[in-house]
């Protein structure tokens, strides 16, 4: 039930405090999503959406950290193997 998926904001159609919403593209499937909890989100941003409500803006820099972290631990191993 805590399933939430990333999608890209295509348009913002309402900017009311409670009703802020827009159309969000989930790899070709476009749905209307409430954006009231991500007031900082703009068109083109990726948001994490749960039951029709966006809960966060995806931080692209942090997304790359998963791969950097892996490179770092692999490099440590190479250093250990070849002192």
């Amino acid at each position: 039930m805590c399933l939430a998926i990333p999608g890209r904001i295509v348009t913002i159609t309402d900017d009311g405090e409670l009703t802020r919403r827009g159309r969000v593209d989930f790899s070709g499937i476009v749905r209307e999503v409430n954006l009231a909890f991500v007031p900082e989100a703009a068109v083109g941003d990726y948001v994490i959406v749960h039951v029709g409500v966006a809960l966060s803006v995806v931080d692209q820099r942090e997304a790359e950290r998963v791969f950097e972290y892996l490179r770092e631990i692999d490099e440590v191993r190479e250093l250990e193997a070849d002192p």
Partner: protein
Amino acid sequence: MKFVDEFRDGTAARRYAHALARIITRPWTLMEVCGGQTHAILRFGLDALLPDGVRLIHGPGCPVCVTPLALIDKALALAARPNVTFCSFGDMLRVPGSAGDLQGVKAAGGDVRVVYSPLDAVRVAAALPDREVIFFAVGFETTAPANAMAVMHAAAQGLRNFSLLVAHVLVPPAMEAILASPRCRVQGFLAAGHVCTVMGYAAYEPIARAYRVPIVVTGFEPLDLLQGIYMCVRQLEAGRAEVENQYARSVRRQGNTGAQRMITEVFEVVPRAWRGIGEIPHSGLALRPQYAHFDAERRFRLTVPGAPEPEECISGLILQGVHAPPECAEFGRRCTPEHPLGAPMVSSEGACAAYYRFRRPAPEAAEEGRV
């Protein structure tokens, strides 16, 4: 899908598994809290990729599974009323109450509707002013902002025919209940990334200190889970017990403060009974008195006789990680997704459903006792 596909890369997954094998010196038992994580682990076979020393046990993070029988029975009683349109997430329709399920109420002519969002239920209420529209507000902290938002939308539109049957539960008190149990075997936690997207993770810091247990906020894709496991094992090997955040692309330490404000505006923290586990203090949300007219339990003054939990379902032990689903005598025999004895076999996040779907031995192999 961007931010999904790249986190399923098989080569990177194997590199993480090898890295884990290099740092592990003794066996460790970790619990992934969220049922969505359990399903990803089994679906992608991550448990088979891990070195032998890492044991994963599955936590209580399935809201459908922990909703108490008494509330399911209330839902059935409400949904059967002729003037009620009962809206729910699809997962709840097959959860057995003490007599039948919501699917059965619908088949008998009840107006039971599956909605994608609680905001859709508000739209149903606006379109059907002569009917009482009730939404079954089940969920963890992840779902609480949407349910609070539904109440605010209904209030702003002046809707008098909309209410929630609230079954909200909170994760940190459940983690503490598991850690405080004498049967606890959990040495490290993978905390639920979307719960923390809403609530942040400061609340876990005192738990990590008090119980000397590392807690790593973790996402839901294979690489997220493998990195979360790696970070947790690295802490255990170093004798550390800290809160770390693997899922930083979505989770900030303070969480989503706007969503938290709306939850606090609409809901208050209450004790809540967890199905198969019992009552846990401060572990649920209920509507505040000023929103009482949106509370289906108060509005319809329901009294449903307390029914005992069926004895053949060991869901309480499954949800606390004491037993794995295949250890249940009824698993795959009398209990299947078509004929579930308990909620963990129904929900798309239930551990029993995950094992049934992804890890069920072929029937002939099971018959011969080879698996």
